[in-house]
C-alpha cells in the first residue's frame, strides 16, 4: 500500500475538520448518555444557545423564513439558563422528563462556513452541520426533529469550545409537545 503525501495545508484542514467532528460526536454521546455537566463544559461562558422560529412567507419577502435576533424564538439561552435546564433535568420531579426520554443525536454534514484561515489563526470560526434528533418517551411517544446548526467555535486553552449555537429546525408548527431535549 502506498502512502499518499498531502500538501501541509490540506493536512491541517483535515485535522481541523476531524477535531470538530470529534467534538460534535463527543457532544452527542454526552447528551445521549445524560452526562449534562460534561456537556455544559463544551460551551464558553459567553454562550448564546439560540433556536429561532421558522415561518411560511411569500418568496419575495426579504426577511427570510427564520426569525431574527431579537424576535421570539423557541429557545434563546445564555449559559446560566442552559445550566438551569440541565439542573431541572436532575431534580427528579421534572415530569416532562420523568422518567427520562430516550434521545439519540445523529450529527453530520460538518463543514467550515469560511476558509480555514481564521480557525488556524486561533480566531472564532463558523461551522455548519445537520442534526437528526430522535426522542422516544414512556411507551410509544416518538418525535423526530431534523435541521441545521450554525456554530461559532473558539479555541480555549488549546481545546475547541462552542461559543454560539444557532439551531434551525425544519418545522414551522412544532410537531412535538415540548422541547426538553438539547440540540
Amino acid at each position, binding site marked *: 500500500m502506498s502512502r499518499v503525501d498531502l500538501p501541509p495545508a490540506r493536512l491541517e484542514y483535515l485535522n481541523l475538520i476531524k477535531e470538530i467532528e470529534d467534538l460534535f460526536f463527543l457532544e452527542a454521546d454526552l447528551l445521549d448518555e445524560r452526562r449534562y455537566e460534561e456537556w455544559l463544559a463544551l460551551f464558553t461562558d459567553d454562550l448564546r444557545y439560540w*433556536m429561532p*422560529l421558522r*415561518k*411560511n*412567507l*411569500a418568496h419575495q*419577502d426579504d426577511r427570510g423564513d427564520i*426569525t*431574527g435576533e*431579537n*424576535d*421570539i*424564538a*423557541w*429557545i*434563546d*439561552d*445564555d449559559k*446560566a*439558563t442552559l445550566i*438551569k*435546564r440541565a*439542573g*431541572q433535568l436532575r*431534580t427528579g*420531579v*421534572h*415530569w*416532562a422528563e420523568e422518567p427520562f426520554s430516550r434521545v439519540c443525536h445523529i450529527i453530520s454534514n460538518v463543514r467550515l462556513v469560511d476558509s480555514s484561515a481564521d480557525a488556524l489563526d486561533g480566531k472564532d470560526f463558523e461551522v455548519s452541520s445537520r442534526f437528526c434528533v430522535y426522542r422516544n418517551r414512556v411507551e410509544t411517544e416518538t418525535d423526530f426533529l431534523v435541521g441545521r446548526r450554525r456554530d461559532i467555535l473558539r479555541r480555549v486553552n488549546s481545546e475547541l469550545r462552542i461559543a454560539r449555537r444557532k439551531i434551525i429546525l425544519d418545522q*414551522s*408548527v*412544532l*410537531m*412535538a*409537545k*415540548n*422541547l*426538553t431535549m438539547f440540540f
Partner: protein
Amino acid sequence: MTVHGHSAKSLVDFARGEISREVFVNEEIYQEELERVFTRGWLYVGHTSQIKKPGDYFVSCMGEESVILTRDPAGKVHVFLNTCRHRGMKVCRYDEGHTVHFVCPYHGWSYATDGRLVGVPQAEKAYRPPLDRSQWALIEVAQIAQYRGTVWATWDHSAPALLDYLGEAKLALDLALGAWDGSDEETELLGSVQKWLIPANWKFVAENFSGDGLHVVSHRSVDLVGIGPTDGEGRRDDPGKLMMTTSPQWGHGLTFSYLPPDPNRTDYAASPAASQYFKQCWKKRIERMGDRAGLQAVVGTIFPNLSFHGQQPRTLLVAHPRGVAKTEMWRVYFADRNAPEEVKQFLRHYYIRYSGPAGMTEQDDMENWNYATAASRGSIARRYPYNYKAGLGAEETNEMVPGVVTNHPISLTTEQNPRNFYKRWAEFMDAKSWRDLKPSQVDDLSEHRR
C-alpha cells in the same frame, strides 16, 4: 346536545363539582363543540400590531378553521375564512405578509384585502349570464371587535357585543394589556407566534389557565432551579395576595393579585435596565391609581380558548382545537410599547424560558395534559367523573374585583374557576341559539353556594 341521550348539563354536575370524562374524550362531543362553542363564542384572532399598515395580513384560526386577518386600503380590519369560493382552495398559505390581492393558486380567482372578488380568469367566456362577483366575496365573520390592541371575531350575528361578552374579564384585560405605569399607553407584541401541537384535549389548557392554583406543585422542578426575574430565584416576583374570580354568567376565569402600593419594590432585580424601568413605572402607577396601583391580573381564560398571563410572564395563548385529543397552541408575548429596547429583550428572554414548548414551566403542564387525556379514554375510566370539589362553598365577594371571588389564601386551593368554565361550556353545548345563552337572571353567589 345529547350524547347517548344525555344533555351536556348532565355531564357537568356544578353543585357537586363532578364532571364526566366524556367531556374530554368523546368524539361526538368534540364535533358538537366545533359547532356550538367555536361558531358562537367570541374568539381572539390576533393583535393590531400584526397588521399595522393597509395591506398587511396575518393568518389565524377560529376553531379548526383557518382565517385571514387583514387591514384593507381604507384601514378597516377584517377577518375572512381562508378558503376560495370557487372550489375551496386555501387562498393564503403564508403565515403573514403584505399584499394587494390574495390570488387563489387553483384557478386564479383573486380577492382584495377587503374580501371582494376582483379577478376571475376567463370570466367573459365562461359565464353567461355574467358572474355576479358581489355574491362570491370571501366569507367574512359576523362580528369583529378590537380591545386594547387585541382583535376578536365571532361567526354569530346574535352574539352580544364583545364588551358585554368580556364581562368581569374586561378589568383583567385592562390590567393585563395596559402599560405598567397605569396610563393608556399601548402594549405591543414582542414578535412572532410560537405554534406547536400537543396531544391533549383543548379544555385542559383552557381550564388550567382559568385558575388551577393546585397544580403549582407540578412546577416544583422549575422552582427548585429558579428562573425568575430577580436573580434567577423562583419563577416570579411576589405577586401579593391572590384573588380568584369567576365571571359567573360568561364563563371566564381570572386570577387577580394585590400588593399594597409600597414605593420600594425590587422587582426585576436581575436586570438593572428592567428594574429601573419598573421602578419608574411603579412610581407613576401609584400617582395615577393610588391604592389600586398594586392590583394586577395574573392569569386567566376568556371563554372559550384565549388564555393570558398579565404580569410575569406577559403572554396570550390560544388553544386551537385540532381533534378530541389534539390541540395547536399559539403563544405570543407582549410588553409596553414604550419600554426601552434593552428591557424588552430582558423580558423576551425571561418569558420564553418560562413559557412555550421549551419553557421550563410549561413543559410540565403539557406532560400532564397529554397523559390526563390519554388515561381518560378507556371504557372503565370513562365511568368515573373528575373531581372539581376544591373550594366548594368558599365563594365570597371582594370590593376590589368583580365577580364571584375566592380570597387569599384559599384562592390557591379552589377549583371554582374550572367549575364555572364547565358550567358555561354546558350552557353553550345545550343552547339552541344565543337567545338561550344571554346571561341569565341567576343569583350568582347563591348558585355557587348551592
